[in-house]
């Protein structure tokens, strides 16, 4: 009986949108890696990950989000513990220590942390009495977001750390921070920024400068930005056709199946394809906003809005990077880019939205 009710309440359009994006992603991954013998068949791995992600999402949906909220701090604590573990025992890939090996598989605790952060913040915001954040509450909020963020930045994976910024902004917006606190925070950031700049590694400075001046270093850091723009631009209106993109398939564009997967889509399916992906994202986010509005309580609203902020922010950073509007930092496009843990994480995020949507009528 329970099973039947669950199926009745299933938020099919939202889940369908997520799976459609994942399907587009898998096609693009297959195309991008077709000519690389070492990576051929990677889309099959992504398909397997999608299966695992679907199972995880079912679990997320099946359990009432109030119960998830009960355990939110514990879950967040586990995520933080894993982040500490990754710093201690993690596997280093490309200079970043962000992977934990579990048997034959590896996964990124940082992706899990995004999900638990959203859950923890939503729970925190829903529990308080006052509508506006007090100073102490702001500090508590800062701790919930800041601890995993700093641990991730320490890996150092600035890209993933950066994806916490939209979540933090949303938390502040939804939590109702007083304007004078916002002003104070901005002053602090402005004062600390130069120190932070000095703290950045050279290649990170280069990446930021390349956005300001793309002609800086066409074969170095700027190369990737330039190649990405060439791939996107050469797609023109209708694209070169699936599996016919020259830039991405011939490896002119590095990381074409992960962070730059949207460039593959834009090259092969053109403006129409790129607009289609944007439309699918909009629909998915719109479904999240709908879930927030129709929620039976504030917890559901906060939860949906935070997940929407997370997905929207991460997508914006990635798309901005592909279009050369953002520094080149390793942030995958949710649902679309290759990466198992990331896919599980965002699917679980969608699961939370569907959970809220499915339980909009008080039992």
């Amino acid at each position, binding site marked *: 009986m329970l099973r039947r009710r669950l199926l009745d309440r299933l938020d099919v359009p939202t889940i369908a949108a997520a799976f459609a994006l994942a399907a587009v992603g898998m096609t693009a991954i297959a195309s991008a890696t077709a000519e690389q013998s070492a990576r051929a068949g990677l889309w099959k791995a992504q398909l397997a990950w999608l299966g695992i992600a679907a199972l995880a999402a079912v679990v997320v949906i099946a359990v009432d989000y109030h119960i998830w909220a009960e355990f939110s701090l514990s879950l967040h604590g586990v995520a933080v513990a894993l982040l500490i573990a990754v710093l201690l025992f993690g596997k280093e890939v490309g200079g970043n220590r962000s992977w934990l090996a579990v048997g034959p598989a590896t996964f990124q605790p940082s992706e899990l942390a995004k999900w638990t952060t959203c859950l923890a913040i939503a729970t925190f915001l829903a529990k308080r009495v006052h509508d506006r954040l007090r100073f102490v509450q702001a500090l508590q909020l800062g701790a919930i977001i800041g601890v995993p963020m700093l641990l991730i930045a320490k890996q150092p994976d600035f890209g993933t750390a950066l994806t916490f910024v939209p979540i933090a902004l949303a938390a502040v*917006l939804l939590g109702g921070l007083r304007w004078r606190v916002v002003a104070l925070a901005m002053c602090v950031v402005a004062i600390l920024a130069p120190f932070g700049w000095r703290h950045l590694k050279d290649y990170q400075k280069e990446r930021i400068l390349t956005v300001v001046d793309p002609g800086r270093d066409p074969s170095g850091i700027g190369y990737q930005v330039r190649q990405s723009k*060439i791939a996107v*631009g*050469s797609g023109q209106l209708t694209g070169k056709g699936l599996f016919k993109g020259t830039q991405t398939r011939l490896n002119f564009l590095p990381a074409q199946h992960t962070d730059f997967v949207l460039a593959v889509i834009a090259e092969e399916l*053109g403006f129409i394809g*790129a607009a289609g992906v*944007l439309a699918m994202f909009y629909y998915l986010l719109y479904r999240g*906003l709908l879930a927030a509005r129709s929620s039976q309580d504030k917890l559901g609203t906060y939860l949906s809005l935070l997940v929407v*902020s997370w997905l929207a922010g991460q997508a914006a950073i990635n798309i901005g990077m592909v279009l050369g509007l953002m520094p080149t930092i390793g942030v995958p496009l949710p649902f679309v880019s290759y990466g198992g843990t990331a896919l599980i994480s965002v699917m679980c995020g969608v699961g939370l939205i569907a959970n809220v949507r499915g339980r909009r009528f008080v039992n």
Partner: protein
Amino acid sequence: MDYRERWELKEYQNEQRLGSRATLLHAVIVIVLAGFLGVFWYLQIVKGDEFALLAENNRLRRIALPPTRGVVFDRRGEVLASTRPALNLVLVRDGLTDAEGQLKRLESLLGIPYDGLKGRLKAMRGRPTFEPLVIREDVQLADIAKVEARREWFPSVEVEQTALRDYPDGPAVAHALGYVGEVNEAQLAKIADGSLQQGDIVGKTGIEREYDDVLRGRRGWKLQTVNSLGRPFGSSQPGREPEDGRPLHLTIDKRLQRKLVESLADEVGSGIFMNPNTGEVLALASTPGYDPNVFTAPVSRTTWTALISDSRHPLNDRAISSFYAPGSTFKVLMSIVGLETGAITPQTTVFCPGSVLIYNRRFMCWKQGGHGTVDVHKALVHSCNVFYYLLGKKVGIDAISKYAEMFGLGELSGIDIPGESRGIPPSAAWKQRLQKEPWYPGDTISVSIGQGLLAVTPLQMVTMISAVANGGTLVRPHLARDAKSEATKLRVSAASLALIRDALADVVEEGTATRARLGPILVAGKTGTAQVFKRSVGVDADKQPKGERDHAWFIGYAPAENPEIAFAIVIEHGGHGGTTAAPVARKVLEVFFEDRLPRKDADPLLQANLSADAETSSAATPTPR
């Protein structure tokens, strides 16, 4: 309002606020996505064409298709130079593992030094990895079999096909043909029309260089799709087919050429044989030679050093670039000067007592006791110095200079291979230029017998003697069959030349060059000895140590009555022209007149007569100068 009402109002207000915050988030999402849509529009629709072009340039690369170099044939259609397929052993650097092990196993298997390969592999770092390291060029099939048999030892070693220039006769035709090599910076700079590019194979010397534009052909190209590392990928688009080089037919006769090199043997010297009527060069050789095949593959440092540092300069083409005093061969020209200026007539006689006192200096004849009374015929046949001393004194340097120039001495002949020298023409102006001294009358006396301040190349001498042979036409020597022939009719009386030809025939028949006699074919010629050391005057040149001996000359033509072939031969430190240079000429002429000479094996008696003749006549005759 009671508490509950206030609470509900607050809750209501909170929900209103949360709703407006959600709306704000919605608005931000819509604005950002719309912005992205706008940027996609800008990049893909507005700037789409521009980026499409950039993408094409990104992925298409021109791959050069080298043409096959033209084949060089001799006058009878035999191949002198061609292009043959060759196999290189290469190390594929892409996905290379255990380079050290593979290279060390190669060292033990084929003896290719490990250190050298390691260094070259290191030097290639930074080059695209699809470019393999060439382990050994033009590798033997046996060595390939050795590697193939141990395939599992050499996962990255492969065999690659290339083309190499091949000179089947090796050193026999080296100097005339020249050799090829990779184009250098200077050549690239000179030809700026883009027909040459780095790595192209061009002719470096000889015919290969002179006719490079004929032989080289035209490089083609194809458009190859490449990935970001430049690795060829998928199919290629046709661009332009390479145009192979055209074949080149030479006037060289391989048989004569071989015989000439064989006859020069271990001597340092050179020889040219050519058709006196047309200027077609039949054979041109310089010894010691080199094997042009060593240049086709990149030359190893040791080979190059060995060739460069050899004191006998094997790379020099002595036939066209070395110049020597002509010695007595110059008497041919002196006789023309005498007869043409009217200083002497065929009947003019001089008494030779063995020496003559001119300008208070004693000038010696080579024959002690002298030749007695000689006219120009006898003076030429027996090479009497006294006759020419007096003739030179009478005509003066300016007349000698004029005729020398007319017959091409001190001038470039215009032969179609690079590297020709002018030599030193006998003239007052040249002495002034070289030694900053005026011409003294005494200088003329030495020049009269081909010594002193003049030097000629074998090429100039063969051109000069050809003009005598063909009745007064200066022809341009050439090696390519289709080269434009040039001929200048000289203002020389036929009678004078006929008289000289008559004498030259007697030189071989009864004079200083009897070793060049060729049975029924009458050979005409003149020997010469170019003094190397002053003290060699009056000393028997043949008895001196080799390095101090004079240079031996022999120039001439055959048949004497209707010349078909003219020649000039120099043997450095060869002593007397009649002893060392004349037999070389005879051996080559034997091949040329093969069909008209009695067959040696068929007539042993004649053969015996011939050689006996040569022996006795040389033994009976004192050594001529």
